């Protein structure tokens, strides 16, 4: 059952070959057996899941089911879930029971999907390896000595090990695509504003975007159908008409123009990863696409300006954690300042503190123009590079990451090396574009991700290209060793 696509699972339920309760129990058992090894869940919610599954079964019986009614999923622990702990991977929120549901959670519930639990993540989504989580690192199912990537590493590992058919994640600088690449699955970061940020714990508000992590482009399209859409409760939500993201999956690629940015295939990219991408490129050529070299000249500035913009926004967003209204509070504060300072010192981990301090510095009097404003100006140059590129090509193809998954502890003491692991994903967030990472092969039995970047609101086209590639290759059929079951 765990190797089935969402459409196949949906068919099983509709044809009454399996009930949602049975399907839910099946995946809960898989979590029970394998999660200890992977640490991909912070909270498993069997009671909620079985209650929702019973309701879904009644809905299927009465003929009111939607495509994903009765199908289990896991939510990244950044999405608020009413009555269920929402920790954001932090000690600060270890005792936080969200008083309301995120819009994404609400939409999945309304579609009749079943929440299996909340997945592990880098603390407040700040990290590229899942090692900054208060709940310990997640292991990559392909090699448990390596990281699953981050920050949505728990979601990626859980999908990859088939503990859940699909999961939600968030992407601020690559946090859906990089773990999807490292774990050999498909992850989509939608256009900024397509998926509501309401109830999604804020890190860097001008960059944060929720999206799906699943096995195939088709599965991801089905979940995007559920979670995308305008939300008045998110002031940056796009008022874009509802689309069916599965509609163009089978379109022919003849005449499709694919851009290859020179800057993405230069030094720094592992030569073995390069070979895998070359093979993928020719596969798409065989499918009728044409390849064109393009330039994104400001690429090397993306990581530096991201580490001004994201920390600046984070320092502002995380000022709400003050030990007064919710979250961690220190013992016996001597005065109000002591209460703030010690609650935050005890509640936040080192990476979060570093980013808050950098952001505070970049926004402080006398430094604002030199850092934050300068970074926002270069952000426009990066965006304009893409605008110019999309006048020549339909989609852009490149690596998701420069290498396959690195070892646990390898980069944990070197923040800059860790930051640079997002070099190919960060520009997309700065420009607000949609992008998808899909499995494209292996180097030393470790999965390699291929990234496709689309023009604004062109998710359907990205999913079409990804699906066509997945129809022609069998990377999706491969499971991590020991997980196949």
């Amino acid at each position, binding site marked *: 059952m765990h190797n089935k696509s969402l459409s196949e699972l949906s068919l099983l339920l509709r044809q009454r070959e399996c009930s949602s309760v049975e399907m839910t129990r099946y995946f809960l058992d898989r979590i029970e057996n394998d999660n200890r090894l992977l640490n991909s869940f912070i909270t498993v919610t069997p009671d909620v899941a079985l209650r929702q599954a019973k309701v879904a079964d009644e809905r299927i019986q009465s003929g009111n089911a939607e495509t994903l009614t009765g199908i289990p999923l896991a939510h990244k622990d950044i999405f608020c879930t009413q009555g269920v702990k929402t920790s954001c991977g932090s000690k600060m929120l270890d005792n936080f029971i969200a*008083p309301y549901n995120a819009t994404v959670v609400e939409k999945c519930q309304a579609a009749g999907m079943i929440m299996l639990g909340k997945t592990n993540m880098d603390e407040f989504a700040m990290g590229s390896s899942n090692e900054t989580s208060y709940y310990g690192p997640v292991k990559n199912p392909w090699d448990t000595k390596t990281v699953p990537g981050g920050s949505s590493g728990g979601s990626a590992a859980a999908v990859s090990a088939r503990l859940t058919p699909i999961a939600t994640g968030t992407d601020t600088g690559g946090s859906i695509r990089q773990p999807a690449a490292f774990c050999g699955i498909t992850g989509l970061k939608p256009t900024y504003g397509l998926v509501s940020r309401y109830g999604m714990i804020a890190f860097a508000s*001008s960059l944060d975007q929720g999206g799906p992590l699943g096995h195939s482009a088709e599965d991801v399209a089905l979940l995007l159908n559920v979670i995308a859409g305008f939300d008045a409760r998110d002031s940056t939500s796009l008022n874009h008409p509802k689309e069916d993201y599965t509609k163009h999956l089978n379109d022919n690629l003849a005449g499709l123009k694919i851009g290859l940015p020179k800057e993405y295939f230069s030094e720094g990219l592992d030569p073995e990863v390069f070979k895998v991408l070359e093979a993928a490129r020719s596969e798409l050529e065989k499918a009728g696409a044409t390849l064109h070299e393009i330039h994104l000249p400001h690429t090397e500035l993306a990581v530096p300006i991201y580490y001004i913009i994201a920390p600046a926004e984070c320092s502002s967003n995380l000022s709400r954690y003050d030990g007064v209204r919710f979250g961690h509070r220190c013992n016996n504060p001597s005065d109000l300042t002591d209460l703030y300072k010690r609650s935050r010192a005890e509640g936040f981990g080192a990476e979060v503190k570093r980013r808050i301090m950098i952001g505070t510095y970049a926004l402080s009097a006398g430094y604002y123009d030199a850092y934050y404003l300068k970074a926002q100006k270069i952000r426009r*140059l990066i965006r304009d590079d893409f605008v110019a590129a999309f006048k020549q090509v339909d989609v852009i193809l490149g690596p998701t990451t420069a290498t396959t998954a690195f070892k646990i502890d390898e980069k944990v003491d070197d923040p800059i090396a860790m930051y640079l692991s997002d070099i190919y994903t960060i520009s997309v967030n700065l420009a607000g574009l949609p992008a998808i990472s899909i499995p494209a092969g292996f180097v030393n039995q470790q999965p390699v991700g291929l990234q496709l970047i689309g023009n604004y609101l062109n998710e359907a086209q990205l999913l079409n290209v990804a699906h066509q590639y997945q129809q022609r290759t069998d990377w999706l059929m491969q499971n991590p060793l020991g997980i196949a079951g």
Partner: protein
Amino acid sequence: MSLPKVENMAHLARISLSEQDIPLYTHHLSDILSFVEKMNSVDTSNITPLAHPLDMVARLRPDIISETNQRDHFQTIAPQIEAGLYLVPKVIE
């Protein structure tokens, strides 16, 4: 970045740092700041800063109450309350 500067940043961010932590934070924060220096290689004198990737302006709504009072509900997760109020150390003598 100097030690006193890091101490000041930590104070502005309302985070207490222990004596033994300060050198490592100073080291890491200095690394990050020299890394972002690369920004200065570009002349941006005629560029307008980009605040929103789709150049969208904030949506406005009519000034009418849209939320219900949920004080009790929200206070169930507060660290310390009394009579519907959040308790903090004494601020005014």
